[in-house]
């Protein structure tokens, strides 16, 4: 039993953290190998295990970095590699190509019901909340009959972009007789989606750890009624409950990382996403409350963390969605 990381993983995490601290851009991250670290050797990378994903995304979360690593690499390149699209997968992993994955449709929540359909090799439909779509070179689109690849220059493809809670951007995407190429069945999604959910949860863990640190510092220094806020017993007990829940989230992330290739992977996906989503919101709400007014202001560091935690719950199915998935998977 070993809950630790390899020397390589630890080193990658550290250099990633240093690079992010210097305010590096996406290409610096790719140069560092952050993309390749998320791909298995057979897919042209040098990592791709649960522990690699955990290390990279927890570090990104702590740093508050907005990168294409989740959508373009873990999810995009992950699907492409499994679909036998090795060249494009490697291009995405190296940053040369950008992939966005269009899953959801307006009003359909997280259940995978889609109406986008192919006629011949033309796609027509509407996809909602597609992260990274504006910067993408290619879209992978979930349609009624499988997954399709679309070049973003293609005719009939329209996007309307907007900002996201996690600091990135997404778009509403419309396809109208847009040229596309089918790359496989929707079952291709399963493993990359599990990895992407681990990535979101590890990112959220990093964010939560950062939020707890900020709050701890604040409670130790900020005084009220003549003493540090953190010396009030009611505040202390709430911090204790908060820490205990973050510890639960940490173990949940470890569980998924360690079981990403296990037979009961889906049970761990549902358990971890449900628990992490619930705790993420709790941490966001409670750290704001413990700060008081300052915790609600954009100029203080907590605001983007709270929004990113909110995004973590909403991404790929919220805590209740995965609670129901857990029941279904456990019964099966």
């Amino acid at each position: 039993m070993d809950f630790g990381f390899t020397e390589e993983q630890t080193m990658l995490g550290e250099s990633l953290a240093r690079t992010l601290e210097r305010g590096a851009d996406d290409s610096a991250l790719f140069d560092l190998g952050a993309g390749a670290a998320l791909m298995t050797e057979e897919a042209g990378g040098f990592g791709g295990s649960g522990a690699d994903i955990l290390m990279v995304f927890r570090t990104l979360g702590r740093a508050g970095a907005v990168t294409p690593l989740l959508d373009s690499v873990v999810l995009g390149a992950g699907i492409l590699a499994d679909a036998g699209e090795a060249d494009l997968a490697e291009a995405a992993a190296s940053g040369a190509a950008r992939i966005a994955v269009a899953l959801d449709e307006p009003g359909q929540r997280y259940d995978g019901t889609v109406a986008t359909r192919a006629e011949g090799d033309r796609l027509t439909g509407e996809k909602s909340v597609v992260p990274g779509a504006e910067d993408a070179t290619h879209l992978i689109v979930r349609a009624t009959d499988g997954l399709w690849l679309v070049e973003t220059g293609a005719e009939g493809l329209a996007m309307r972009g907007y900002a996201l809670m996690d600091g990135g951007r997404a778009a509403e995407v419309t396809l109208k007789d847009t040229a596309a190429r089918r790359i496989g069945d929707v079952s291709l999604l399963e493993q990359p989606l599990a990895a992407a959910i681990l990535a979101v949860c590890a990112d959220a863990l990093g964010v939560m750890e950062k939020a707890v640190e900020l709050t701890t510092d604040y409670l130790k220094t900020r005084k009220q009624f003549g003493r540090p806020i953190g010396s009030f017993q009611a505040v202390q007990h709430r911090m204790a409950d908060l820490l205990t829940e973050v510890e639960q989230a940490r173990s949940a992330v470890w569980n998924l990382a360690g079981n990403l290739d296990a037979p009961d992977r889906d049970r761990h996906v549902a358990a971890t996403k449900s628990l992490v989503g619930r705790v993420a919101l709790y941490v966001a709400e409670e750290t704001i409350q413990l700060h008081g007014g300052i915790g609600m202001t954009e100029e203080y560091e907590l605001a983007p963390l709270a929004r990113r935690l909110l995004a973590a719950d909403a991404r790929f199915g919220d805590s209740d969605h995965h609670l129901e998935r857990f029941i279904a998977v456990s019964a099966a």
Partner: protein
Amino acid sequence: MDMSFSPEDQAFRAEVRQFLRDRLPARLSEKVRLHQELTKDEIEEWHGVLNEKGWLAGNWPVEFGGAGWTAIQRHIFEEESALAHAPRILPFGIAMLGPVLQKFGSKEQQEHYLPRILNGQDWWCQGYSEPGAGSDLASLKTTAVRDGDHYIVNGQKTWTTLGQHANWIFCLVRTNSTVKAQEGISFLLIDMTAPGITVRPIVLLEGTPEVNEVFFDDVRVPVANLVGEENKGWTYAKYLLTHERTNIAGVGFATAGLAALKRIARAQVANGRPLIENPLFAARLAEVEIDLMAMSTTNLRMLAQAAAGQVPGAESSMLKLKGTQIRQAINDLTRRAVGPWALAFPSEALEGANDDAPPGPAEAAGATRAYLNNRKLSIYGGSNEIQRGIIAKSLLGL
């Protein structure tokens, strides 16, 4: 025991409802429903409509131009207004300063300021909180030093809601620092256009500049602008806080929020059926609705006590606590109900997001905005921790 409203109150409710139907512009109610920010003009427009009807100051006695409503009538008006998505009446002049001037102000102050509140000449804001104080209000540091017929004010106020629109601010200032914190505070009315005042907006995490910092740099304030006696400001402040706490439960807002949540949950599809039919979601929704039914009765019980002349004790703190918990729970369920659309960050004020129309129905954008913005409910107006302290003290006396 009779849980129904009196025939008079029922008639009053019908009158309010009819008035709102006739006079509340859909343009305004739509923005309120979608949790969009109202402009200064829009708020003043609604104040004007109410003032014309004589309903702007329900809590003021008739002699001061108010409606002189009973507590029950005020409750009915607030509830119907919330259900109709009417803009909220700004509390600063009507609910806060008005009662203080009526009780402690000089005749001159009453005659000058009160009509200007009603007719919209003055927009007041509140200068209580300070960066160093928070829940410990009495530790405020803004000073007012007497210099002939003037006070010279120096310091900083914060969390000044909508202060960017205000031309007047009522402030708690320190006029004596050699005595116990509460005993050296005075209540001062300050012209926001006076030299030395700077207003800096604070953007909140949902992206709206709702509150402000107000800086005072050698601001000269006529002594005539002192309310009541020097160094007695803490008494007036506590009186104001009591008045601020009518409608502390926010039953109308919660009821309107629950109705909006149900509309969204009927429209959203989960596994092929309306989300509202999902057993787990329905259970979470029912828990909140049941809580609201009980809290709403607590609210009416307190109003009946107040009508019978009893002074509310810890019960108003319980209403604040439970009321904000319920509203935040509704905000949370609404955020969940909009699904992936909760990922969007529909900010109107933050850089780089200005021109984006949010995705999904307008209610989705409002859902996350309300969720984020309403984190304030448990922080302001006496944080929920402060309320817990009050409740415990009333019981334990320790």
